[in-house]
């Protein structure tokens, strides 16, 4: 009965019909009567005192309703933008968390820092008037790189953060504490080989296809505020609006995240703009709308990565990894974004064991303020940085000791019989078959015939290189209690309500949010499979706090592992109640009722009632055990997982480099992933493709660049190079499944894998091609210029 669209089927996406026929309903598609438009006045300076603001000329412009400032906001007791995860430095002091006003009051700390907002009848009027707002800035010395900001004499960005240090953190999980450092140092002292690399993980701009937008509608008559906003987690936004910034009771605020065109992390946070339009709407009594233009997204969306890392790997004489030391400087930007301090620490260090049995690992991270846009989670969020450090070091070790990189990895793998495996950096890995995955990737790559391909490339005058990466990542952050101990200020559970209608069709209200992940398809497949009803009879509702139960939204590849499991558990409850109703209808014991293919059946007999009949009985309880059972068939389950899930996989990349131009061409890319069980293979493959494209973008093309003072140079697609279809090869994608025992679906998550595993695979391949020329290192992005310069430097013996 689930028909052809149950678990494991590549069901076509329900949402596609709407998206590809232009019927999606995004925030900017929503227009309310009497709505006005907001335009933000933003700082052109990376660091300046705001000495005064003259709005007289702007207020005279046509259509202008108001020019509102940070002082107005303070007068209305609007709270500063909250930090959602607190980090503690190694000396026990909390990270410095400067108050971050949505509109700057006395000082701006990055180019694009909002200073005021103009509200006018049309967007153009608001924009023109914003140009007439005269802000008197007193420029201050500024700095954009984290390493420069740590130097003595660097301009001080926040008074309370000497040396611009937000935190100086070390990772001492219970498994290693308190001897992590001394044990690791000992491993290095006794090592047969030591590898040391200094790596830059380049800063990235998220670039969701739909720019951020917010429309706030305060109704003075009811005191009710509705916010339509591009959010990955509307309930979290409502919580922060109500408790931290706008300070309204939650029952008076409804947050709707309708169709959202991509997030990649950048739409998790509670941003200045959405708070400002809410406040402006409440203050002015009209709906207020703001839609970012692309240039604004470059300035105002939280950016990703930006690490400088020293990684060292110690090996014994048999090429076993014996220790790893990692010291990272993370650029946090001018203020802290909501999860800014957590991404380079608790989402980074616990993954530094990779898939290897390295027994001793010691990690330190400094979080540094700079005059740049704040950084936060971006597809992968900490794990791409960890994976890049580990997998670059492993490849370097293979070169140094003259071993095949696949063999070196194999020799150090955690073995299938060691799961659940407690890593020294505090993770309990769920499952995996790393050697199986490696073999699958090798087979798809025709690993043994690489030399032949290399000769063919040579014959064409090209240098061929092959690179490998074996990533492991952590999805569905959990459990809430452990996260709370690590500084989380929010829960990490998820919720789902299954509402069965009298006719037997089903509505699912999920706290998880889809902005490209295909919930409407995959979640419906789970319901169809479990209840034996037609896929078309299931509707997935998400994104509206007025409709759905209080959920945490979507980030960290958690939708299926956590949200899908909540749904699964709600379906358990529906099935259990259905069984009781069926037992009554069939005059049998509930324990004797089996539920298969949409039929409740007395075991071993042909007596059965369909799921639809049971649903009808629940709402028309004429023949119903009312003394023992409530009518209705609607169940909710909250699920707080006991652990993360750990997808892993082996990526092999081959490139051809033109040594005359430095151009890198991707020839071949093989991805062998272990995502646990898979609900919809086509959707998974799509997620892998997208992740790989973003990872390859980081490795070869994308670079968010500032002047040393903090002027953003890559502020448009003229200078920020996104990957396009013709930059990419045909991906060869395969999966090898080891189900996780930590959720009943056995699923792990697939949203970020590609972006995590691709960068080291690509760079290892580029270095593989360039090593014969004497090139030993290159940083991302390996643009033609960077490659050419590396070749020239190697040639001239630098």
């Amino acid at each position: 009965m689930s028909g052809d669209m149950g678990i494991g089927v590549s069901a076509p996406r329900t949402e596609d019909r709407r998206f590809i026929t232009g019927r999606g309903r995004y925030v900017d598609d929503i227009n309310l009567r009497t709505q006005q438009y907001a335009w933000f006045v933003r700082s052109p300076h990376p660091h300046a005192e705001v000495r005064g603001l003259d709005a007289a000329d702007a207020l005279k412009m046509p259509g202008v309703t108001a020019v509102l400032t940070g002082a107005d906001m303070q007068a209305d007791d609007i709270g500063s933008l909250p930090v959602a995860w607190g980090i503690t430095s190694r000396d026990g002091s909390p990270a410095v968390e400067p108050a971050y006003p949505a509109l700057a009051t006395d000082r701006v700390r990055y180019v694009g820092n909002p200073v005021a907002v103009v509200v006018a009848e049309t967007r153009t009027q608001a924009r023109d008037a914003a140009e007439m707002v005269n802000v008197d800035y007193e420029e201050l010395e500024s700095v954009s790189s984290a390493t420069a900001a740590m130097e003595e004499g660097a301009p001080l960005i926040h008074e309370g953060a000497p040396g611009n240090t937000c935190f100086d953190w070390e990772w001492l999980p219970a498994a290693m504490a308190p001897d992590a450092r001394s044990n690791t140092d000992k491993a290095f002292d006794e090592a047969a080989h030591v590898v040391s690399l200094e790596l830059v993980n380049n800063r990235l701009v998220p670039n969701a296809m739909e720019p951020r937008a917010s429309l706030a509608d305060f109704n003075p008559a009811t005191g009710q505020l509705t916010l339509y906003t591009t959010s990955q987690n509307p309930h979290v936004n409502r919580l922060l609006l109500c408790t931290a910034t706008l300070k309204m009771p939650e029952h008076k605020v409804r947050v709707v995240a309708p169709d959202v065109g991509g997030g990649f992390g950048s739409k998790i946070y509670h941003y200045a703009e959405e708070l400002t339009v809410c406040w402006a709407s409440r203050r002015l009594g009209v709906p207020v709308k703001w839609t970012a233009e692309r240039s604004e997204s470059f300035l105002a969306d939280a950016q990703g990565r930006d690490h400088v890392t020293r990684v060292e790997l110690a090996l014994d004489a048999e090429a076993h990894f014996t220790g790893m030391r990692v010291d990272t400087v993370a650029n946090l930007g001018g203020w802290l974004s909501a999860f800014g301090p957590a991404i380079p620490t608790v989402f980074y260090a616990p993954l530094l064991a990779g898939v290897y049995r390295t027994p001793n690992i010691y990690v330190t991270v400094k979080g540094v303020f700079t005059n740049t846009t704040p950084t936060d989670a971006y597809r992968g969020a900490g794990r791409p940085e960890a994976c890049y450090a580990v997998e670059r070091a492993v490849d370097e070790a293979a070169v140094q000791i003259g071993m095949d990189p696949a063999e070196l990895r194999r020799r150090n793998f955690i073995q299938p019989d060691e799961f659940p495996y407690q890593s020294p950096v505090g993770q309990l890995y769920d499952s995996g078959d790393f050697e199986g995955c490696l073999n699958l990737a090798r087979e798809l790559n025709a690993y043994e015939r690489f030399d032949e391909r290399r000769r063919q490339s040579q014959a064409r005058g090209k240098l061929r290189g092959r690179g490998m990466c074996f990533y492991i990542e952590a999805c569905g952050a959990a459990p809430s209690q452990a996260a709370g101990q690590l500084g989380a200020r929010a829960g990490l559970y998820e919720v789902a309500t299954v509402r069965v209608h009298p006719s037997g069709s089903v509505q699912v209200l999920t706290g998880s949010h889809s902005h490209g992940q295909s919930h409407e398809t995959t979640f419906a497949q789970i319901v169809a499979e479990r209840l034996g009803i037609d896929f078309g009879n299931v509707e997935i509702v998400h994104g509206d706090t007025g409709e759905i139960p209080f959920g945490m939204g979507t980030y960290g590849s958690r939708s299926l592992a956590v949200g899908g499991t909540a749904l699964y558990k709600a379906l358990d409850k529906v099935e259990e109640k259905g069984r009781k109703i069926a037992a009554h209808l069939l005059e049998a014991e509930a324990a004797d009722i089996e539920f298969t293919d949409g039929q409740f059946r007395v075991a071993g007999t042909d007596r059965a009632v369909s799921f639809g009949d049971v649903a009808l009985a629940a709402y028309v309880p004429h023949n119903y055990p009312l003394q023992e059972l409530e009518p209705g068939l609607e169940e909710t389950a909250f699920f707080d997982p006991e652990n993360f899930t750990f997808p892993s996989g082996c990526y092999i990349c081959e490139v051809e480099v033109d040594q005359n131009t430095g151009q890198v061409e991707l020839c071949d890319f093989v991805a062998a992933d272990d995502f646990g069980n898979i609900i919809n293979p086509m959707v998974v493959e799509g997620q892998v493709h997208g992740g790989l494209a973003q990872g390859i973008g980081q490795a070869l093309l994308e670079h968010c660049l500032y002047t040393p003072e903090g002027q953003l140079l890559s502020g448009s697609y003229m200078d920020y190079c996104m990957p396009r279809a013709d930059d990419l090869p045909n991906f060869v994608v395969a999966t090898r499944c080891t189900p996780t025992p930590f959720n009943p679906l056995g699923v792990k998550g697939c949203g970020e894998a590609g972006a995590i595993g691709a960068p080291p695979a690509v760079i290892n391949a580029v270095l593989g091609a360039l090593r014969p020329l004497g090139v030993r290192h290159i940083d991302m992005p390996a643009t033609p210029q960077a490659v050419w310069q590396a070749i020239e430097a190697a040639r001239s013996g630098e």
Partner: protein
Amino acid sequence: MEIRGEQSLAHPREDVWAALIDPDVLGACVPGCKSFERISEDNYRASMQADIGPVSAGFAVEIRIADPDPPRSYRLEGNAKAAVGFGRGQADVRLEEDGRGGTKLSYVAKLQLGGKLAQVGSRLLSGITRKIAANFFERFAQVLEGKRPVGAARAKRPGVWFQVALGRVFRNRVLRWAVVAVLLGLAALAVFLLLTS
């Protein structure tokens, strides 16, 4: 960003110096200049229109002459503000006699952009600056040679060739009468068509 340039001028150094600090001359030579005034001995204020990449904006410019050493060298410090950001720079200008009665002018300029100008214009800055400088010196040479009026700054516009061509036509008596005859003929034809339709 640092930009260097050199220009040979066929005029004595003293003349070049005098022209270089004359607001009327500068107003006539700076491309896109709408006004140029001296507000004190070494301070000037100007407004100009400039296109930097995709950004076209009106700039309020303040310029100061620092360390003047007439007629050998001076330093220019400039600040330009627009709604789309700001530009700022210093230029060291040197005038040397070339031994043939002319002057060699050389400059080293350091430029910075901020705001949207930096975000979309930085990569284009050196090209644009070179173009503006070339344009400036072309006009400056014309001024020194008396071929260009000062006091009224006007940007070259496309279509000038057309006016020039038309001017030539009307200076030639035969062509002028030929054009008048053709126009009269066309008018007569139009009247005829109108009446018979």
